[in-house]
């Protein structure tokens, strides 16, 4: 399979599609989308596996994710949803010829540097999403559409911080 990659869809159309999925989620299961929560679930389950459910549940940070004794990540809604997202992303890329094993990076940075910064960015986001009780999917999109003040605060501070810091990250992307 060596087709040339098709251009991306119109962002507005993709956005409406995404919004329809989000709305469908409200209608079907009474909740919206999410991503960062799945990471917390997996960490908690991993802890329960390695040190036992008792010790893991004694951690105030992890106990909410272990309410049913050892909650296997597979039993958690967000984890299942995120696995589905991986599949959905794969399928979309497959049909558009956009599957490619590569390190996406700015033009003037090495692959190694890119990887290091990617990890570092992930750490900041993982920590920030815990504080914010969600990320762009769970808070900005889901909470934003439900008019939650906290979600809109998250949207504002997230974008503001990124824009204000962008001059310092030019090397990564431009």
């Amino acid at each position, binding site marked *: 399979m060596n087709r040339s990659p098709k251009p991306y869809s119109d962002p507005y159309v993709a956005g409406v599609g995404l919004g329809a999925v989000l709305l469908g989620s409200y209608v079907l299961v*009474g909740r919206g989308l999410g991503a960062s929560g799945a990471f917390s679930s997996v960490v908690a389950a991993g802890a329960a596996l390695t040190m036992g459910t008792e010790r893991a549940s004694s951690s105030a940070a992890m106990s909410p994710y272990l309410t049913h004794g050892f909650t296997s990540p597979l039993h958690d809604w967000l984890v299942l949803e995120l696995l589905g997202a991986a599949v959905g992303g794969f399928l979309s890329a497959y049909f558009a010829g956009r599957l490619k094993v590569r390190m996406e990076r700015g033009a003037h940075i090495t692959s190694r540097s890119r*990887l290091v910064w990617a990890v570092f960015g992930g750490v900041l986001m993982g920590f920030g999403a815990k504080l914010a*009780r969600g*990320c762009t999917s769970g808070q900005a999109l*889901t909470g934003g559409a439900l008019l939650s003040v906290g979600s809109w605060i998250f949207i504002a501070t997230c974008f503001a911080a990124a824009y204000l810091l962008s001059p310092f990250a*030019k090397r990564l992307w431009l």
Partner: protein
Amino acid sequence: MIAPFTSSGSISETGALIAAPLIGVGFGWFLERGGLGNAPKLAAQFYLTDLRVFKVMFSALLTAMIGAFWLDRLGLLDLSLVSLPDTFLVPQAVGGVLFGAGFLIAGLCPGTTCVAAATGRVDGLGVLGGLFAGVIFFDLNYGRLEHFYLSTPREGFTLPHLIGASEGVTVAIITVVALAGFVLAERIERSRA
């Protein structure tokens, strides 16, 4: 009120778990279609050369917000039964700043990272690892953070309450602001082309 289906009994708890990956497939599909599985494209948002992050996100937000409002208004969906994300004002503001910094540096967010990794992008795997590390770091320091983490809770605090308007008026205001944002985005992109 037929929806949420899990509240009216049409979908059981198991059914909800089955629906999860299906909903996820739709989620991932449209993220990739919109080009959000590609870090340099995402980061271009912050250099004003490609504003698709804003366009996709706010088109999605408008669609879901307007759709949810009307379904509720017509008595088909009980919005009061849809889970509202938790609200803790100050931690969310601070979390937003950290998240935004990470987002700029990584070029991907948790959801789009999964899409990127699934489509072969190695940098996506790096972000995944970092996300886990960030969560673990938080959990390890929870004791120190707990007081701050739990500060300024505001359960059920929505924009209508904040601005003293009805849900409908709030929806209208956000719609107008978002549409104006789209017009502005097109102008900015055109001037940069």
